[in-house]
């Protein structure tokens, strides 16, 4: 699963300027200033309820901000027509079971929406592109299966294929590896890395701090609806911060090429 040169894009800068969102009288995120630099793999980490999924929804423009702004290449994301925004920023939510019986191919073709003709739909060039996306995520063999019959891991890869189908330059993926076995999980992170190498930006919500440290160029740490740290993983993920944010003791293991932690409960 490597990204071919024709996937190459020049990703725009995506940033949140003192972003905040309130739902039902509660601030899910507040005062977040974060820049997603072009062609970087950014990992968002944090304990449950820190606001990681909310952050992706704000960056994708699917949720309106209560405070602040989201800027795509300097332009306010809320001011862009949805169709245009969708060509540039793709968002994959945490996997939800689909309840309608699309085939895998039909499901992935939904990702062509921002490019297709409203009445006549996809052309043959679109169909070739869908084949590429199915192949890159290793689900071409499933293309005539109903999405309602897929396993969690298969569905995750199909969602990734749909995300690629949009041709977006910025990909926002919410826990894309949570349902995958080790091999497919590493494949997906490798695919993400490959996309970044050809100029796209990828933002991943990850629970595995070691994977975040190993694959990401930048790490953003959220806690209680606030951004508490952001920067290269080697600088950000140090035992003090991990103890404070995740309530666990991080013990660096010796002998690894990069820092690898072993986690233990707090004493």
């Amino acid at each position, binding site marked *: 699963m490597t990204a071919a040169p024709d996937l190459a894009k020049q990703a725009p800068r995506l940033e949140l300027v003192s972003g905040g969102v309130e739902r039902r009288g509660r601030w899910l995120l507040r005062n977040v200033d974060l820049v997603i630099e072009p062609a970087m793999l950014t990992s968002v980490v944090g304990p449950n309820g820190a606001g990681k999924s909310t952050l992706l*929804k704000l960056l*994708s*423009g699917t949720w309106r901000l209560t405070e602040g702004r989201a800027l795509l290449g300097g332009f306010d994301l809320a001011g862009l027509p949805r169709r245009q925004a969708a060509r540039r920023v793709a968002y994959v939510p945490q996997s939800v079971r689909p309840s*309608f019986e699309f085939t895998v191919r039909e499901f992935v073709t939904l990702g062509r929406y*921002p490019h297709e003709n409203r009445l006549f739909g996809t052309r043959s060039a679109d169909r070739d592109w869908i084949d590429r996306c199915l192949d890159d995520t290793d689900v071409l063999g499933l293309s005539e299966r109903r999405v309602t*019959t897929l396993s969690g891991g298969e569905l995750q890869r199909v969602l990734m294929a749909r995300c690629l189908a949009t041709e977006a330059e910025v990909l926002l993926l919410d826990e894309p590896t949570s349902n995958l076995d080790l091999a497919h999980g590493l494949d997906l992170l490798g695919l993400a890395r490959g996309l970044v190498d050809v100029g796209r930006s990828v933002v991943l919500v990850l629970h595995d701090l070691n994977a975040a440290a190993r694959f990401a160029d930048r790490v953003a740490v959220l806690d209680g609806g606030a951004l508490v740290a952001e920067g290269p993983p080697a600088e950000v993920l140090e035992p003090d911060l991990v103890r404070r944010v995740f309530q666990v003791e991080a013990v660096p293991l010796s002998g690894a090429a990069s820092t690898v932690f072993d986690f233990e409960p707090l004493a």
Partner: protein
Amino acid sequence: MRIVPGVRRVGFWWYMAAGAVLLVTFAAVGLYRGSVALDPADVLAVLARRLLPGEYGPVDPQVETIVWSLRAPRVVVAAMVGGCLALAGAQMQGLFRNPLASPGIVGTSTGAAVGAVFALTFGLAGAFLLAAPLFAVGGALLSLLVVTRIATRDGYTPVTTLLLAGVALNALLGAVNSWLIARSWEQYEAARQIAFWMMGGVADRSWEHVAMLLPGLVVGCVVAAWFARDLDLLLEGEEVAASLGVDIERAKRAVLWSAALLTGSAVAVSGVVGFVGLVVPHLVRLLLGPVHRRLLPAAFLTGAWFVVGADLLARTLAAPKEVHLGVVTAFVGAPFFLYLLVRHESEVAVSR
């Protein structure tokens, strides 16, 4: 044993061709069968005289009246009503992501019935022919306006709120309807017309009714076609649809208004014909899958032949008396629906 999730799909063009054949067959039998026995050659002669250019030999004027002025508009209205209801039902099932939604789920068909009953009980329908249909369409659109107003907060209309508001309005309008009917019992003619409306039917429809239905049908179909793809994405939830580029509030509004127009127009000329808008789209989705670019036209065609066929049964089952169309559609539709449910569930169970 072949294990297939759900019912295996059939090809779209095969399905449409079969539907066209059924529609033409039912329509032809509909023109030829009835209380007066006719010679098929005479029926063809009338159609040729009316529809084809050129001169044709003389036809018995009585036969011509029966075929062209009595039976033909009835068949055409039946096809249009069936198409409208099935299309609107398919749209509502997509919008609410629920295969049990019906065209009137947001109160539009009850609203249309109240409009028509209002015009009938207050004698407006006697004053001019268009009063009842116009009040019906008005009632449908007004109901939707009320429901969307109630359900909208800060420019956002959640479908669950819409659904609940629709349920409440349906109950309220049903009560209004009962009250209007109760106070009309002394007026025999109004009571008879209301009963006709509530049971639904296409008896005694004329070309004027076709003309009344046509604008709503055309506008409704065009808007439905333009927003067909948006429904595919809305099936995946509003957040996903928005992230893939759907302007969700605009799409929801367009789908709701076009469905209301289709439903209101259908109810305006035929009363409340039940079950078509529920069963037909569900059946078509099982056979063709959920992609609306195929589902919507197929539902329209299926609704058309289904109602033309049901009307044929309605007037031949107990000839020379007529059974009400709404009774036939429910009698055919409900058992068939139950059969599909049972069969579908068992096949899904096998696949897991």
